[in-house]
């Protein structure tokens, strides 16, 4: 069962990544907020202490009588007692100024200290500073710090709630990311399970949006296309092998049984043996061709590559097949476009010879007497290759892909001898050499071209 399970989410990469970033972001924010808070609170306290010092200094600058007057004036100006100034005697009893009481244990002189004073019926936080005058009296400068504390708390609360929001949003994001990834992974897993169970036509689901996973999925899907194609080909080939080998083997058996039944004279036996040998050779040739294609397709022969000129190979092929064409009454011509000396590629000469030979052989087989076959090599800056064209019946457009498959023979040519493996080998050899294989209508006839980009040559 592949539903999105909540317990699976924490294991997803997306979730973990989101969580990691949440942690990092949280830590960074905490440091930033902490710093801001510490700076702000420190700044406020510092400002206050400076104010105390200047206040104290201006009070001390005045004469004691003047000071008393200032104290009275301040008490009137500040009836709420937000910034009280008061004078106490040496024992800490109130003498003048704003109504206030000192803490029972006297704090050290000239140092800011926190204490409480009753205001509006309750104890309010104050901060103040004491100074002992020359007379022994104590002067108090203080300030109500309720507003300041409230601001500080507000700041702290704002930061805390902000952090909470980030945490909740981040966690939610991580869960959504994780669940999304889990959903896609589950889809992919299901698809893979189906494929493993034999449903080769199945493909991995790709989302509408792009992204890394989508790219991966597309590549895997292309790979699956290729695997499916190969599997179908293997199946097709197995069927074809069964057919194309069973037929001659059946004939072989029938012939031998017939000889067993009827043959009376040594001559008849000899004839039966000859037939059997011919059939066996045919079977072996088919096997040989199959193995050869397999070998070429496996790319095993690239080790035998050497630099060779396509035109030289073409000349050798022409030389080998020209008499055959002539004996069939077919005009055989070879040409190159003049720059053929540059038609050099890295390749296996025997394989290329065999491939081109196969093409020419096919052309000779299917071109009626009086027809023409042309073998042309070309080498331009953009394209180089070799082309075999004939004036035969051509290959119907619908069969051009099929002829490259093993054992395929165009239906109307079933009576022509051949294993049906020729073009498959040509295709395999072409692939091994990085050549494209094109089958076109030459109107009339057929044109098969093996070519590659000229630029690719320069790169090779």
């Amino acid at each position, binding site marked *: 069962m592949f539903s999105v399970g909540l317990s699976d989410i924490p294991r997803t990469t997306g979730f973990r990544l989101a969580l990691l970033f949440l942690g990092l972001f949280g830590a960074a924010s905490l440091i930033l907020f902490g710093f801001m808070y510490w700076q702000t609170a420190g700044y406020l306290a510092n400002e206050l202490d400076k104010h105390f010092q200047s206040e104290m200094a201006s009070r001390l600058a005045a004469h004691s009588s003047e000071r008393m007057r200032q104290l009275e004036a301040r008490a009137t100006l500040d009836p709420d007692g937000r910034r009280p100034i008061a004078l106490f005697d040496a024992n800490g009893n109130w003498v003048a100024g704003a109504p206030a009481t000192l803490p029972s244990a006297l704090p050290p002189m000239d140092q800011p200290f926190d204490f409480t004073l009753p205001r509006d019926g309750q104890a309010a936080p104050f901060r103040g500073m004491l100074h002992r005058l020359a007379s022994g009296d104590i002067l108090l400068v203080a300030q109500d710090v309720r507003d300041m504390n409230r601001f500080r708390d507000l700041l702290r609360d704002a930061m805390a709630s902000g952090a909470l929001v980030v945490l909740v949003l981040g966690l939610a994001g991580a869960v959504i990311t994780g669940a999304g990834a889990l959903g896609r992974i589950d889809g992919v897993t299901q698809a893979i399970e189906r494929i493993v169970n034999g449903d080769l036509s199945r493909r991995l689901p790709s989302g509408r949006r792009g992204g890394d996973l989508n790219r991966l999925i597309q590549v895997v899907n292309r790979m699956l296309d290729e695997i499916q194609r190969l599997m179908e080909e293997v199946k097709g080939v197995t069927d074809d092998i069964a057919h194309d080998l069973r037929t001659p083997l059946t004939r072989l058996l029938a012939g031998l049984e017939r000889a067993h039944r009827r043959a009376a004279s040594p001559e008849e036996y000899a004839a039966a043996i*000859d037939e059997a*040998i011919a059939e066996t*050779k045919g079977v*072996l*040739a088919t096997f*040989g061709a199959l*193995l*050869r294609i397999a*070998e070429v397709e496996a790319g*095993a*022969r690239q*080790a*035998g590559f050497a630099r060779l000129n396509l035109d030289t190979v073409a000349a*050798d092929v022409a*030389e*080998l*097949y020209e*008499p*055959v064409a002539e*004996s069939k009454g077919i005009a055989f011509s070879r040409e190159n476009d003049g720059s053929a000396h540059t038609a050099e590629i890295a390749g*296996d*000469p*025997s*394989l290329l*010879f*065999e491939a081109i*030979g196969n093409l020419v*052989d096919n052309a000779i087989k299917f071109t009626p007497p009086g027809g023409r076959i042309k073998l042309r090599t070309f080498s331009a800056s953009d394209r180089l290759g070799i082309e075999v064209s004939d004036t035969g019946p051509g290959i119907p457009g619908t069969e051009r892909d099929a002829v490259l498959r093993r054992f395929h023979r165009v239906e109307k040519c079933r009576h022509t001898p051949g294993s049906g493996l020729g073009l498959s080998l040509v295709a395999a050899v072409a692939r091994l050499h990085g050549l494209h294989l094109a089958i076109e209508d030459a109107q009339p006839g057929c044109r098969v071209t093996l070519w590659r980009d000229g630029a690719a040559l320069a790169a090779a």
Partner: protein
Amino acid sequence: MAKVLVIEDDRRSSAEIAAALGDHGFDVECAYTGRDGLLKATADKYDAIVLDRMLPGDLDGLGVLATLRTIGIEIPVLILSALSGVDERVRGLRAGGDDYLTKPFEFVELTARLEVLIRRQAAPQRETVLRVGDLQVDLLTREVRRAGRLIELLPREYRLLEYLMRHTGRVVTRTMLFEEVWGYHYDPQTNVIDVHIGRLRRKLEEGGLSQMIHTVRGSGYVLRGSE
């Protein structure tokens, strides 16, 4: 009579090869392991060795070959192998093999190739003129005459003829001709070589002269002087 040592582990294959070579007129000795083959090859004098590439045990075909060559035994060796790759062939020849035949093969191919190997060993060719019956080939001027009459041959026809003449009286197969004369390694399967031989034959027999190139049933030709 040429003596041939067959080193092949499969008893039935070995028996078949021995029978075919015996029928062809060779004196055949069999060995079934690399070690045994090596012992026989060093103890006795053979004209050629047919060596299976894949032998069981610690000494495989190429190992036997390498050992033989190391101790200075230069008997021609024909390697038999189920491995058909061009690389395998090159490896076999590089290890000191003189020829390489892929299984399954036809016995006419095996005997024809062995004949060539043994003859090459026996008589290195130094002559400048080849003569078979009334046919004469001057290797220096490349002039071909039959019964005194000059015959014009295309370069490839000349090389075909030269190869056939160097192996007069012996079967050469289509594959051998294709390898030697065209220089490509594969079995063309079709009758293309026949057509070339046919042309050569017509030129040689022009004017009602007797047949010299005979087709051997199966897969080869033989050139014989007209008696």
